[in-house]
């Protein structure tokens, strides 16, 4: 069996595959953040909490109301999105004109409140959410057993990421959105309801977080801490990709997932640091991020 740096190729392929799985989660979460930052100029620190909320809503749906995974996949992002719209209407809309710091602090505070409520209610150990019946089992890829559920998660998240990119970069609606970001006054003067678009954008962005939460529920323990464990990495992804860059967040998310996966093979102790080392290097060489435009 051939080896690369002492690691069998088969094992390496397995780890790359896992990196891809994690990367697709990073991509979907950072995409939501990038969309929100691009359109609203808000650094949404509540993103992790809303992801956690998505997972919990899926669990609550199944436990209390008998709502299955498939239905949750559609209903939960909508519910989280509606919750996001409520946040936007009641809180965020008042601070767009202020410095980024205010948005950051407000959403960070919100995240703490949301997490606190769930922690109070459910404790930190979390709740089990089983893998839905048709997706149990694994594919034998020769070099590894890839659980069907993980394969499904990659497909869903890549599809959603590409669809979002297409919608924003290639459709008329996306053009309106981009115009509203560039010059809100002028866009409004042309008869486009900018506040409505901003509101829906935020709802959509956090809906993506909710969707990621539902996707994550069967693989991770559904716990109030699951968001805060992930969100820091996701922010690093957004910064590396370039704040507000849609394509940047997708590509960087997947790329960093793979790099992190590789570090878990060669030097596991560093796997939680590697993303931040890359972030530091990128910020030194390209302060606007890999795909960002210098302002």
């Amino acid at each position, binding site marked *: 069996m051939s080896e690369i740096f002492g690691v069998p190729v088969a094992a390496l392929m397995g780890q790359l595959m896992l990196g891809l799985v994690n990367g697709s989660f990073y991509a979907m979460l950072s995409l939501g953040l990038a969309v929100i930052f691009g359109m609203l100029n808000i650094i949404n620190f509540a993103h992790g909490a809303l992801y956690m909320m998505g997972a919990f809503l899926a669990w609550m749906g199944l436990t209390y109301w008998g709502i299955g995974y498939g239905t949750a996949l559609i209903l939960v992002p909508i519910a989280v999105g509606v919750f996001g719209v409520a946040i936007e209407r009641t809180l965020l809309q008042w601070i767009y004109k202020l410095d980024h710091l205010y948005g950051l602090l407000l959403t960070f505070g919100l995240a703490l409140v949301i997490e606190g409520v769930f922690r109070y209610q459910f404790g930190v150990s979390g709740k*089990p959410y089983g893998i839905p019946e048709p997706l149990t089992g694994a594919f034998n890829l020769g070099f590894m057993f890839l659980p069907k559920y993980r394969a499904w998660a990659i497909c869903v998240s890549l599809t959603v990421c590409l669809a979002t990119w297409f919608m924003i970069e290639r459709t008329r609606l996306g053009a309106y959105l981009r115009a509203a970001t560039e010059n809100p006054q002028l866009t409004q003067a042309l008869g486009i309801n900018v506040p409505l678009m901003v509101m829906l954008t935020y709802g959509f962005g956090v809906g993506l977080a909710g969707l990621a939460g539902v996707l994550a529920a069967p693989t*991770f323990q559904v716990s109030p801490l699951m968001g805060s464990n992930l969100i820091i990495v996701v922010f690093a992804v957004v910064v590396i990709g370039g704040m507000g860059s849609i394509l940047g967040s997708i590509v960087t998310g997947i790329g960093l997932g793979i790099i992190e996966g590789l570090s*878990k093979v060669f030097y596991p102790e560093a796997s939680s640091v590697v993303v931040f080392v890359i972030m530091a290097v990128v910020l030194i060489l390209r302060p606007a991020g890999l795909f960002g435009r210098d302002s």
Partner: protein
Amino acid sequence: MKPNTATTVVAAALYLMAGAVAAQISDNVVKIGVLTDMSGTYSDVSGPGSVEAVKMAVEDFKAKEKPAFAIEVVAADHQNKGDIASDKARQWFDRDKVNVITDLVTTSTALAVMKVAKEKNKIAIVSGAASTRITNEDCNDVTVHWTYDTYALANGTAKAVVQQGGKTWFFLTADYAFGQSLEKDASDVIVANGGKVLGSVRHPFPGTDFSSFLLTAQASGAQIIGLANAGQDTTNSIKQAAEFGITPKQSLAGLLMFISDVNSLGLKATQGMYLTTGFYWDMNDATRAWSNQFFARRKAMPTMVQAGLYSAVTHYLQAAKATGSNDTQKVMAAMKKARINDFFASNGYIRDDGRMMHDMYLVQVKKPEESKYPWDYYRVRQTIPAEEAFQPLSRSKCPLIKN
């Protein structure tokens, strides 16, 4: 003149008496600080439940013993960070007149606070943290390690698993003092019992996705994957091992699992696992009686950390009452002299290295169909006598022990 002289003498005597009392229990208040993880990974294992257990201990002590001194309880969140823990300990000892700090879940925080306690000549009672370093190389004469340690866990679980035929092991280890200590202690036990350790992978703490590490463990071909981690790291490892089809081909051994973990994973995912614990609520009438009171207040059964904390605080308060003092040396001497007999320990005692010696229990998680009522999770397989459960003094690395 005479009445005046008499008044002066009485006043002076009263003053001296007051002074004498004050020298014994300062301000006539015994103050207990509960320093724990209030919101992070270990907050179900200890956290608010630990604070509640301490409050219960204080209430019961007041009702039963009617002490002449007041007892206050303060609590704070150390966020599992050593520096925050030692800062808080300093503030409590220096400014807030705290006499004893307890709980101390997470080894790094326990080691940090023990040092501060020694420096300030105050007491630390560790119930939450697990590393044997607390009573070995880092031991001191103001610290007691109450509930369990990595040696006892390794000795209980690893030994049982090796004896059942699980000879080859691979470790998934949380990369900090506790995980390393647990891995080392378990490896020693495995080798001593004729097993073999094929390797280990150290994951950052806390982790979220363990699949990469699990694949490495799978590739090792070991019969047993030993989980030298705790809390959510353990629950996620177990869940993901099932997802990747690693279990049941290879078996998992959770070296530190609490009843809260079993409760959150469910019996379907955990059935058949062996684990070592210092306490199980459903063992006898005494454990049930106390645990039901705890349940009424917390809506969860107590973990061993929380039950041990009740026992430890009660023992401390009894020593304070017996000596009429909150002087560190006097109270420590009294604590080490008295035997501990309560629902948690029978005939327990504190060794010179600070280890509280009590029986441990090897339990096996029940199958879902065997569980008859809520929280009916364990079958006690073996009672491990204290002398066997904990590291013998002959192997101690504690400078207080002369070998």
